[in-house]
């Protein structure tokens, strides 16, 4: 790997990443609410996500598709954050005009989100 990429992995350096490169995510529905679980690969990443992946960030990411508030629950035993997005499915599975009426694409949708991320927490080490 190049010298600059090596420098980027030093402590304190931030890089711009998409969540898809960092976490797992699965989503589903309950009435008109969509819930999204995000899973970190290790404790350090989890602790960082607790700081930056706030309900406001998630709500803003989905714009007018999430009409109600977003709640967040911390689940440290499986290194997860759970987001419950209220009034997010256009009326709920059986009443919605949406193609994704079951909310199963919200998880992948959240993986698009870009965040600033500490380079030394990136997966894969320095073997690229």
């Amino acid at each position, binding site marked *: 790997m190049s010298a600059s990429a090596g420098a980027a992995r030093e402590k304190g350096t931030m890089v711009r990443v998409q969540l898809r490169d960092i976490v797992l995510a699965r989503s589903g529905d309950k*009435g008109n609410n969509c819930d999204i679980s995000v899973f970190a690969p290790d404790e350090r990443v989890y602790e960082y996500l607790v700081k930056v992946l706030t309900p406001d960030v998630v709500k803003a990411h989905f714009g007018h598709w999430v009409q109600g508030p977003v709640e967040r*629950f911390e689940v440290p*035993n499986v*290194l997860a954050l*759970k987001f419950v997005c209220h009034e997010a499915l256009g009326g709920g599975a*059986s009443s919605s005009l*949406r193609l994704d009426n079951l909310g199963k*694409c919200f998880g*992948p949708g959240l993986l*698009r989100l870009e965040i600033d991320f500490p380079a030394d927490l990136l997966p894969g080490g320095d073997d690229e």
Partner: protein
Amino acid sequence: MKQVKIGAGQGFYGDIIEPALDLAENTDVQYLAFDTLAELTLAILQKDRQKDPSLGYTKDITRTARTLLPYVHEKGIKLITNAGGLNPEGARREVMRVAKELGITGIKVGVATGDDLFHRLDELERAGVDLSDTDTGRPLEEVRDRLLFASAYLGARPIVEALEQGADVVITGRTTDTAQFLAPAVFELGWRWDDWDKLAQGLVLGHLMECSGQVTGGNFSGDWWNIEDLDRIGYPLAEVSEDGSFVITKAPGTGGRVSVDTVREQLLYEIHDPRRYITPDAIVDLTTVRLEDDGPDRVKVSGAKGSPAPPTLKAIMGYSNGFMGMGMVGFSWPNALSKAKRAADIVRKQADRMGIQYEEFSADFLGVNALHGPAAPILDEDFINEVFLRVTIRTKDRAEAEKIGRLLPPLVLNGPPGVAMMPFAARPRELIGLWSFLVPRELIESQVRVSVEEVR
């Protein structure tokens, strides 16, 4: 330590049967449990029952019985299912009919009823139950004349009772997804109904298994491309120990994967507050669960904490909530998205000029933002090869909904260039609104009846 082996046979009405057959044939599974009811399924079953009063159960129970009753008979495997839907007695008649057709006698089929509240709403109201929707606070009067079904969620007790009466097959209506799996653990391992931590473990077991392939590599957001043989995915098999801990695995030779990652994705699936997963059997704290790698395709699950079951049961109702009309048309490069947007504009103007009575009009652009909405970035149009426009409207009645689909075919001649029509009739779909309320559990449980009949 005593153990029981419980497998998942089905995750929804319409699921495949081969994984259950794999478990029955190639493992020493003792119980196969089937969760067939999503929130919406009862609405489908209600329509069946309106057409034919002998229906109202999930019709795939015929195939389930035909495929698996030989294993019930020969290997002593027991089947547990909520396929009874709105008519568990009807489902029992069908299972017993299939048994006779197969020449199988001597097996016992149990049924639990008492979850159907459709004809008890007045009585419940008189007893002081608030039937307003718990989510929105809306009073029942708004939808009362449009109700399609009303059912309470029962827990594992009636299923255990049927097992105690010797049932080989247990059929219920709206018992919880988790109850199908908790019940055999309680019955076999002798757990007490106030041993909250063990019940919590059994509920975690049920929650992990109720969506069949979703814990064995299906719908996995990690390296799904490395998961082998999803065409012959194995459904989960649990080895449950007396102390409540269990291992999730799957039948040998099947596809899919069981790993800490596939299990933790399912652990929180469709859960609201992970500290308070509320079921009729106990309230579970999922934040105490431990997942450990236990070898290839094996994950050990332990540590769930439970607290006392709630004093109320949740009831769910569905009501007719209008209709959805839909039409779809595709546009090719160049400028596929612009063409589709222009077509949406044309359709909307024509719908308004015709006076189509819609409450909501929606245009989705498939291939662009239909699945992610505002979260999808706007792409340079030159890189988009094709876009399908999907127009939907919400209407009060079916005839209005039907009109929108007819506005799309003329676009082939009258709209932007480069059109592909899909040859399908956009039949309007009835929309079902969901409604829930809480009922003191004694009002429900005093009416639960369990009966067992033998096939002779």
